[in-house]
C-alpha cells in the first residue's frame, strides 16, 4: 500500500508525524537479514521513551508483538515501522542507523522539506521519493477535516470512520478520555504506524476534550 504516503494534515500538524519504514527486499537481501533487523530494533530501543508507536506487521495478531518492543527485538521482522513525533529524535535515530551501515532500505515518510534538511545535516543523500498528489475522483465521499486526518493515519484504511465518530461521542459523554480513545483507534492499525499522539490532539480538537 502506498501506506503512509497520503496522511492528511497541515504542515504544522505533520511536524509531529514522521514514520520510519525499514524493510528487506524480497529475494535480494533477505538472507541473514533477520539478525540485522534485530540489531536495528536494538538501535530504535535507545529512543523508546520518545517514540509514539511501532510495529513489524508479521502479522501482529498471533504473536502479540504490537506495542511490545521487547518482543519485537526478538522477532524475525521483515519490516520495521516506527512513529516519531519530533524531528530531533528521528534525526538522532537515523544518524545511528546510518553509522551502523546495516545495508537495509530505510524510508522516511513525513514532511519532504524537513526530511531533506535532516538528511543534509547528517550527511545522507536520498535516493528516491514518492510524492503524493492528493485525492481525486469522487472526493465528496471522503470524511472531512480532522476525521480524515485520523483515518489516513492507518495506511490500510483499517481505522473505521464509524469508530472515530463513536469515540468522539463517548468523549463528549465523558466516558472515555481522548488519550484512551486514540489508543482504541490505534488497535485497528496492525502495522503500528498510527500516530496516537496526533490522534489524541485531533480528538481533543473535534470534541470538548476528555
Amino acid at each position, binding site marked *: *500500500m502506498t501506506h503512509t504516503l497520503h496522511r492528511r494534515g497541515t504542515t504544522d500538524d505533520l511536524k509531529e508525524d514522521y514514520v520510519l519504514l525499514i524493510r528487506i527486499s524480497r529475494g535480494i537481501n533477505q538472507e541473514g537479514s533477520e539478525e540485522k533487523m534485530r540489531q536495528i530494533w536494538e538501535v530504535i530501543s535507545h529512543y523508546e521513551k520518545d517514540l509514539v508507536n511501532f510495529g513489524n506487521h508479521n*502479522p501482529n495478531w498471533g504473536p502479540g508483538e504490537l506495542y511490545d518492543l521487547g518482543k519485537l527485538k526478538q522477532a524475525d521482522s521483515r519490516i520495521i515501522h516506527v512513529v516519531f513525533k519530533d524531528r530531533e529524535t528521528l534525526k538522532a535515530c537515523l544518524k545511528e542507523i546510518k553509522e551502523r*551501515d546495516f*545495508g537495509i532500505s530505510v524510508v522516511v515518510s513525513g514532511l519532504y522539506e524537513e526530511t*531533506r534538511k535532516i538528511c543534509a545535516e547528517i550527511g545522507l543523500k536520498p*535516493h528516491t521519493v514518492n*510524492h503524493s498528489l492528493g485525492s481525486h475522483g469522487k472526493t465528496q465521499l471522503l470524511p472531512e477535516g480532522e476525521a480524515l486526518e485520523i483515518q489516513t493515519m492507518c495506511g490500510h484504511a483499517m481505522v*473505521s470512520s464509524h469508530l472515530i465518530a463513536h469515540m468522539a461521542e463517548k468523549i463528549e459523554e465523558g466516558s472515555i478520555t481522548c488519550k484512551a480513545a486514540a489508543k482504541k483507534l490505534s488497535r485497528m492499525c496492525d502495522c503500528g504506524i498510527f500516530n496516537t499522539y496526533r490522534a489524541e490532539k485531533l480528538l481533543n480538537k473535534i470534541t470538548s476534550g476528555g
Partner: protein
Amino acid sequence: MIIDQETCIGCGECVFTCTVRAISLSEDKAGIDRDRCVECGNCLRIAECPTGALQQDELVYPRVWRKYFSDNQQQWPAHVRFSTGYGRGTEECKTNDRTGRFKKGQVGILVELGRPGVTASFADAEKIVRSLIKAGVEMEEKSPITALLKDKQLGLFPEELRAERVLSCIVEGKVKLEDLERTLAAVTAASKEVDTVFSLGLVTRLDDGFTSPIAPVLDRLGLQTRPNAKINLGLGRPLIED
C-alpha cells in the same frame, strides 16, 4: 463475514469496527450488507463477539479477492506474493535503492483506489488501468492488480471479478519522464469516470540526492505535491545507482 442470527445478542460491538459501515443493527440483531462488506476481518479481530455469532465464512473465487486486497493480516496467494506477502502487495519506492525498480528518467505512477473507507470495484480499477495503458504506461508486473488482468494489452479483468469490491487496491506502473504530462492528463480524465476516490502518488529518483526531476513538469501543469512524501534514504547495499 456472516453473523449467525440465532446466536447474535445484538450487543452492537461489531457495528463500530466495520471499515465500510456494512454492519448495522436491526430489531436487536446485527446484520451485514454482504455487497458492501469487503472481508477486511476488522470486526472479527476487534469486536470480540461475545457469542461467536460473527464468523468468517469460507470464501471462494471471485469473492475471496475481496479478502486478499482488504485484510492486511491475510497472506497473498503465492502466485501474487511480490512484496512482503501482506498489505496491498506493492513495493513502490520502499526498496528502490536495492531493486532499481524505478530508474533515472522514469516516473512511477501509483493510483490507490477506494481509500479510506470508500471502497472500489475492479471495474473502477479497470478504468484506471485502461487509461494508463492507452497513455503508454508500462504496468508493473510484480503487482497483484497487474497479475489479475485477463488481457494485459487492453487492461481487462475477468468479467466475474469486475463487480467485486475491495477496501483499496493499487494500480502501479511507470513512464518515461517525457511522457509524464500525457499520463497525468489521462489520470485526470479517468478521475471523472470512476465511481470512487483515489490517491495519486508519483515516484522519482532524486538528482544529486535532493533535486526532484518531476518538479518542472508539475510546475508547468500547476500541480502541487502535498507537503509530506516518502523518501528512500539510499541506505540499502549494494546501492543501485542508475
